[in-house]
Structures are given as structure tokens and as C-alpha cells.
């Protein structure tokens, strides 16, 4: 293999699995370290800079970082990255002002944002501090989008939501609430320099063809609409027996909300096997904890109506078969239909984009799936000054992805308004700083904690089921937060190898607890992976290869399970190994 180019910022970035997996590339190990030092404000600031909504995301993030966490490869559970974010948000100094300076003198450019969700708000934040003027349009009475209307308060209290959304609005967004844009022409006619569309995927899927759907309409609701109705107090109670159809996170929110509004017998029905449910495992667990069973392999057949009233549903039992490519098909088992009595059905079977307000004369071209044609990187549509982000761009995803889209769209809008090429995007800012303090001392705590992941304390179940506004999770206290933060393996502390001073004593090989360092003859990647001291079969993880050493061998390090404990560097007599902190800041609008 060729020697690894560690000057390429993406090499060490990839070693920081959590940060690399995060769509917004939040500096996870750095903020976790700050939490372990009790520096909550600084930890919050790092989050705020990259993911804009630390308090919100610290509760409801989809956490792509956690499955990526290196810890899952050496023990069972990842660091509770998401819940630590909340620790930073909960414990930051209330008096600290995190709002960046917004220039008094504007730059003369005006941007229109359609939709007031996380993507639009991110664009607003990034551009306001550069002197742009921002107008925001939303059909609701308050900003936040689906994070406000769809995520129940028992998961995300309104106070937390308001704090982080108002912080952006207070930077000087001109808001136009309760304004439904029914034709994009209304906005394009206003002469904005650029327009950002962040209207999400607002339409919940229905099952219009299922028998009984029309007759039972009074007792059948679309999940996301029902959740919004609960928020606005149009719905305040449910009957006792409730069925929720669907296996995603919305289904979990619906069933748990139904439990709080009087539903005693609430069940979730899914067509597919449980293992294929789309909901996050922890959300399924939380729902089950509240007494909601997940009934899998049941496909809805019909709504059963008696005397004009919904009395239950018939389901067909399914089984999953897989072809030799692992492709799944659901086939009926042939058992007789199963009748489940109920008084209310909530449909949470998916969300769709809907752009009835984008006409063809706007020039925005749509693809065959009814989604706008949007550049994956620049977020530009077929109309040069109109950009899309969040669920509106590429279909339903999650909040952290919407934030990442917002950052990219803001960069594009900034470049566009300056008449620059959108392809000439700013590079990430990086640094690599030695952590050496003494022979065996580092600027970071190199001890590897063997503690298991701490459970998040919750309020009493009886209490929480009586109050839909009461947040179920209490969050880690400072002490548990510290303990959990110490589980972080500091993957941003890179093992940097200088081949020119190495005397090949192999002390690093001998001391490495996870046997990831090797001195061996070079070969191609397959060959090397086959020959290393410990199995190197995780192809997602890089091999760090040095130039040829005096004995003709090369140093090969499998990054896979490196604990970043620093022992290789401590045992190296010539300081050929050194622990260096790699900082990777994704570019944001306005950066050179």
C-alpha cells in the first residue's frame, strides 16, 4: 500500500467515527471532554456552532454517531453521545449569551425562507451573522416545524424548544407566521436575492383504499396531524382502545401520546417483522416500557364498522421471506384474519413530500418521485437562486440531516449572492496539535474507562402517563454525566507516526492492548489485512501505513479498535509516535 497521506484532512476525520458519522460533523470527543471537565458552556458552544439545536438534539436526535462509536467495537454499548449533549444544554450557565454578533449594517442581500423548521432556521443563523436580511414564512403560528408540531412534549419540553428557536429568531429574523404560501410566485415576486425552501415532508400517508376507511373517518386519524392537534389542544382525550399502524418513530410518539390521553389498551401493529421496524430501538423500548405491545407481521385488511361506528380492524398475518439476495417479501401466512377491537386508529405509515404550491411556471423541475431536482452538494434547484434543504430536498430524513443541509445551503446562498461559483466551496479548518506534556503525561485524560453505559433516569411512570407535558427522561445529572463522558475513547487524539525517527524496537507493538500496530513487509491492502497480528477484517476502517523503514518493513496500524490510550507513544523511546489532537471544523457560510 502507499503510505497514508495524513495531510488529507479526511483521513484523521474518518478516525473520529462519531464526528464522521454526524451529518453536521459535530466535534463530539471535544465536547464530551469539556463536559468531563465541567465546562458545560464551552461544550454547548461547540454543539451550537455545528448542530444549532443542542438542547433539542440532545433529546430527539436520531444519533447516527452512536452506532458508529468505536466503543461498540470493543464492548457492547456506545458512549451516550446524545444524552451528553443534553448534559451540556441542561448545565450551561443560563446567563451566558450564545448569540453571535449580528452586524448592524446589512450587506444589502435579502433571503426568503419558506418553512420554519430546523433547516430554514440553520440557514437563518448562518446568514444573519454575515449581514444578510432574512424573511421567514411559515403556515404555523410559531417556528420549529415538525420538531414543534410532531415531537411530543414528554420527549421535548416546549421550554427547550423555545429557547433554541427564539435565540435564532431574536438575531433578527423577519417572521411571517400563519402565512401559507400557496404559490411560490408569491415569494419569487418579492425579488429576494435567494430563496430557501425548507418545508419538510408535511403529508402523512393515508390508507385510502382500505375498506371502511371512509365510514370510519371520525375515528381514524393521520398520526402527524393528530399529534399536531394534540399540541394545539384540538384533541384532548382518546378512547380506551387505540390501534397505531406503523413501525416508525411517529408511531412510537402516537402510541405514547395515546397512553397519556386516556388510552388504556394501546397497541402498535406493523406489517413487517419487528427487526425491520424503522423506529429507533430506544424509542421502541420506551413505548414498551409504557405498556404498549408491538404486534409485528400483521397487515391491515379492513376497518370494521358497525352501525356507522368503528369497532375494530381485521389484520392478515404475514411472514417475511428472503430471496438469495436478501431481498425481503412479505407474504400472507394463509391464517384466517385476526380481528382486533378498537375505538380509534392512528395511521403512522410514512410521510410524503407535497409541493402543490410549486407550479411548473416557477421553473423548478421535479423528478419522477415528485421531489425537486436538487444538487446533492450545493442544494441548488433548477432555478439558480432557489435552494432546498431538510426533508423538502431529498425526502424524509431527520433533524440533524436537516441542519447539515441548512449549513450547505447557507454556504451556497452566500457564494451565490457574491456571484461566486457554488462548486468552489470552503475547505474545513483543521489543526493537529501535540498533546505531550511529559514523558508519560498528556494534555488529555488517556485512561480508558471500563464503566458500562449509564441508564438515563426517568420520572415515575404513573406520573408521566398522566401528564403529556411532563418530560419522561430526567437526563444525566452532573455526576453521571461525568462518568459517562469518561467512557469516551478520545478518538480525536490521533496516533501520529514519524517513520524517520523510528528504530523499530517494536515497543509499541508489544504494549498495544488491542494489537493494532504491526511492522511487516508491505503488500496490497487485501494481503496486509490478512497478515496483521490481529484480524483486520473491518473494511470500513482504514489501515495507517508508513513509508518504508530501514529494515525494509513498513508500520501498519489498523485503526479499527485503537483505544487512543497513548501507550504506543508512551513506550516509544524516540517519540516516533505522538498523540496529537486533530480538530476538524466543517466549513460554514462566510468561511474562507
Amino acid at each position, binding site marked *: 500500500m502507499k503510505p497514508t497521506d495524513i495531510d488529507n484532512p479526511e483521513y484523521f476525520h474518518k478516525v473520529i467515527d462519531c464526528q464522521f458519522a454526524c451529518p453536521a460533523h459535530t466535534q463530539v470527543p471535544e465536547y464530551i471532554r469539556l463536559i468531563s471537565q465541567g465546562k458545560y458552556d464551552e461544550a454547548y458552544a461547540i454543539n451550537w456552532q455545528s448542530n444549532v439545536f443542542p438542547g433539542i438534539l440532545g433529546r430527539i436526535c436520531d444519533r447516527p454517531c452512536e452506532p458508529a462509536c468505536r466503543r461498540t467495537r470493543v464492548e457492547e454499548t456506545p458512549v451516550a453521545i446524545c444524552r451528553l449533549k443534553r448534559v451540556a444544554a441542561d448545565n450551561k450557565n443560563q446567563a451566558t449569551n450564545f448569540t453571535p454578533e449580528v452586524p448592524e449594517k446589512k450587506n444589502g442581500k435579502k433571503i426568503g425562507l419558506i418553512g420554519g423548521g430546523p433547516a430554514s432556521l440553520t440557514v437563518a443563523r448562518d446568514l444573519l451573522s454575515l449581514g444578510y436580511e432574512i424573511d421567514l414564512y411559515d403556515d404555523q403560528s410559531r417556528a420549529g416545524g415538525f420538531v414543534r408540531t410532531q415531537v411530543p412534549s414528554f420527549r421535548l419540553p416546549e421550554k427547550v424548544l423555545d429557547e433554541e428557536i427564539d435565540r435564532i429568531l431574536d438575531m433578527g429574523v423577519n417572521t411571517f407566521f400563519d402565512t401559507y404560501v400557496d404559490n411560490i410566485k408569491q415569494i419569487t415576486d418579492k425579488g429576494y436575492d435567494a430563496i430557501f425552501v425548507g418545508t419538510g415532508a408535511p403529508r402523512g400517508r393515508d390508507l385510502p383504499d382500505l375498506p371502511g376507511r371512509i365510514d370510519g373517518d371520525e375515528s381514524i386519524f393521520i398520526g402527524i396531524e393528530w399529534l399536531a392537534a394534540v399540541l394545539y389542544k384540538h384533541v384532548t382525550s382518546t378512547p380506551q382502545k387505540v390501534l397505531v399502524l406503523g413501525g416508525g418513530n411517529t408511531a412510537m410518539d402516537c402510541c405514547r401520546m395515546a397512553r397519556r390521553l386516556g388510552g388504556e389498551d394501546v397497541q402498535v401493529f406493523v406489517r413487517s417483522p419487528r427487526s425491520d421496524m424503522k423506529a429507533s430501538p430506544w424509542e421502541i423500548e420506551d413505548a414498551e416500557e409504557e405498556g404498549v405491545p408491538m404486534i409485528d407481521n400483521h397487515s391491515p385488511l379492513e376497518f370494521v364498522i358497525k352501525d356507522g361506528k368503528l369497532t375494530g380492524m381485521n389484520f392478515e398475518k404475514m411472514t417475511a421471506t428472503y430471496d438469495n439476495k436478501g431481498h425481503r417479501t412479505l407474504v400472507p401466512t394463509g391464517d384466517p384474519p385476526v380481528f382486533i377491537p378498537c375505538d380509534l386508529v392512528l395511521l403512522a405509515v410514512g410521510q410524503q413530500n407535497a409541493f402543490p404550491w410549486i407550479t411548473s411556471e416557477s421553473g423548478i423541475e421535479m423528478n419522477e418521485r415528485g421531489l425537486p431536482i436538487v444538487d446533492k452538494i450545493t442544494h441548488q434547484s433548477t432555478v439558480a437562486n432557489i435552494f432546498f434543504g431538510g426533508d423538502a430536498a431529498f425526502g424524509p430524513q431527520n433533524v440533524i440531516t436537516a441542519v447539515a443541509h441548512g449549513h450547505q445551503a447557507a454556504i451556497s446562498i452566500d457564494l451565490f449572492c457574491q456571484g461566486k461559483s457554488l462548486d468552489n466551496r470552503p475547505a474545513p479548518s483543521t489543526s493537529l496539535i501535540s498533546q505531550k506534556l511529559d514523558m508519560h503525561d498528556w494534555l488529555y485524560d488517556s485512561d*480508558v474507562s471500563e464503566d458500562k453505559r449509564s441508564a438515563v433516569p426517568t420520572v415515575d411512570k404513573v406520573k408521566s402517563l398522566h401528564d403529556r407535558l411532563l418530560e419522561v427522561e430526567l437526563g444525566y445529572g452532573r455526576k453521571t454525566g461525568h462518568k459517562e463522558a469518561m467512557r469516551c475513547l478520545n478518538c480525536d487524539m490521533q496516533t501520529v507516526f514519524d517513520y524517520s525517527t523510528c528504530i523499530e524496537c517494536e515497543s509499541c507493538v508489544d504494549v498495544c492492548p488491542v494489537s493494532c500496530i504491526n511492522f511487516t513487509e508491505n503488500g496490497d491492502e487485501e494481503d496486509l489485512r490478512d497478515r496483521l497480528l490481529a*484480524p483486520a477484517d473491518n473494511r470500513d476502517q482504514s489501515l495507517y501505513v508508513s513509508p518504508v523503514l530501514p529494515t525494509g518493513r513498513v508500520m501498519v496500524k489498523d485503526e479499527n479498535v485503537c483505544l487512543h490510550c497513548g501507550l504506543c507513544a508512551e513506550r516509544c523511546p524516540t517519540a516516533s509516535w505522538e498523540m496529537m489532537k486533530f480538530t476538524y471544523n466543517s466549513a460554514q457560510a462566510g468561511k474562507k
Partner: protein
Amino acid sequence: MSYARPNFRHPKQPENDAGFTRRDYEGAISTLCAGCGHDSTTNAIIQACFELNLEPHRVVKISGIGCSSKTPAYFLSRSHGFNSVHGRMPSIATGANMANRDLLYIGISGDGDTASIGMGQFAHALRRNLNLNYICMNNGCYGLTKGQDSATADRGSAGKKGVPNPYESIDLCELAIELGASYVARGFSGDKKQLVPLLKGAMAHNGLAFIDVISPCVTFNNTASSTKSYHYVREHIETTNTFDFVPLQREILTHYDEGTSQEVTMHDGSIIHLHKVDSSKDLTSRQKAVNNLEKEKEKGRFLTGLLYVNPEIDETHDLINSTLRPLNTLTEEDLCPGSEILDRINSAFR
């Protein structure tokens, strides 16, 4: 500062046939200097024990005093151990070995320990062909007392202090061959590929196996003027041969052309295959073994690898015809023959 290694290990750490992972053969974290050759030697021992499927509780490790003699703390923490006084490792090992011949003995010593204060003990363990794996971690200096030249420092070699050694050095391998060791090898801590099989061969050998491991002292004797630095050794190393160690009950998968290899069957049935042997380097002949060493020395080279082996020489227990069982298994019945037999013995002396 790290006082301990993290307990996490590679999740796919292989298990050996005895059901142990490499970790089961590890010890505490080393407190030797960073880069010390002894740590590599220690690791080679761990690797050899792992590959031989040894049960840690069937191993005894004994040492004297010195940097090398600290290392039993860094491997096989689940074995028996005795850290004795300066140069006295062989006598402790002899005692233990006499009491229980069923265990595997690893004696760790250094060049100070072996070639100076413990020379007398070393010589007598050799001549008795004690069933002991005598590993000498040889760095040519007294590392623990700031790097004074030891008796194995080559004439003219200079360590960190910069004063060349005026005396002749002692070649421990030659001495071992001459004084009766039945397995003599030299390794280099920086070459585990060679060292691990040498150690495995030694452990399978019945009788005194002496391994001189050139193990550089990075702190005091890794200078450009030293003949025991990493660099110098790598530049001047010569090997007798490469070899495979085939443990007992393992299928022999490699084919060896006749005349190109020499086969030595060890006492336990394991086989050592030596490659590319020319007849002048017959390793079962003492005389040739010493000649080989001297020849390379004349050229200023270190001869490494297996230097001499003779599995036919009796070890101490056979020589003194001692009991076949460990003493702790002998019962009163075994030890006290009874008055009838005693009377018979006594009458034989009348």
C-alpha cells in the same frame, strides 16, 4: 501517566487449543524504559507460551536481579514466580525443579546476573543439564545502575558514557555449548519472527536450553559506538538457518527436499526442521557449533538462530535417577518403606 494497560483487547483475539487468549499469558504493564529490548523479549515469551498452548499454572518463572529479572512481572501473571537474589536464579530453579519435575521452568537472567555475579551458578546449571529454559536478556551493560559495561560488552564497544570497553567479552553461547547445555540459541529482541520459534523449541526441549537474547538498552547502550545497539545488531546479524518448530501432534504440512533440511526430534516428539543446512553446520555437533560461532566472530558478525542442539543428553533428573513424580505427590507410604525393608537395608551394612 499510565500505570496500567486498558483491559480491553481486540474483540477477535484468537484462542489457542488450550482455550486461552494471548491475554491469559500477559502480566502487569512494564516499568522498564520506553523502547527496552526486554519488553520485546517478554512479548516473545508470551507469544511462545500462547502458541504452545501452555497452561499458565503449569509454568514457573524465576529470576535474579536486574532490569531483565524484573520482567517476570510483565508476563504470565497467572504462573508461579520467584524473584531471587543477584545471580542466584539457577540455584532456585534447581531446587524447584528437583521438587517438581512436572512443571515448565523459565529462568530469566541478564548479562550482569549471568556473566558476572552468577557465573558459578550458571556454569553448574549447564553441566548438570538442568531441565530449564535459561533466557539471558543480554544488553552488554548494567542498565539498572546507570549503564556500566558488563562482562558481555564487546571489546571496544562504548555506551552512553563514551569510554570503550578495554576487556574481552564473554560469549555466553560458546560457554553454554562447552559446559554441557543441550540446546543453545541466540536471538535478537528486535526479531520476533526468529525469537518466538527459538523459544518454542527451547520449551519443548528436555534439558538445559540456553537462549542468549541480544536485547538493546535504549537508555545507556544504544549509541552509535555500541555493538549492542538496535542499529549495529541489525547491520551485523548472521543466522545459522531458518527453522520451523512443529509441535507434537501437529500434521507436517510443509514438504522438505532431501538434503536441504535437517530434522531434530525433540524429547516430547516435537520436531525442529532446519532449512538450508550445509553439512559443515551440523548443529548436533558441539565442535562444529563452536567453530561456526568463532568463524562469524572473526568476521565481526553475530551468529544467531539455533546454534547447537542435542536432545539425547540426559537431564539432571535422569542423571541422579530421582523419582519420576513431583515430591508433593509422594505419600507417607512412598516415603517410608516400613520397618521390614529398613531392617533389610540395615542388615546389608552389617
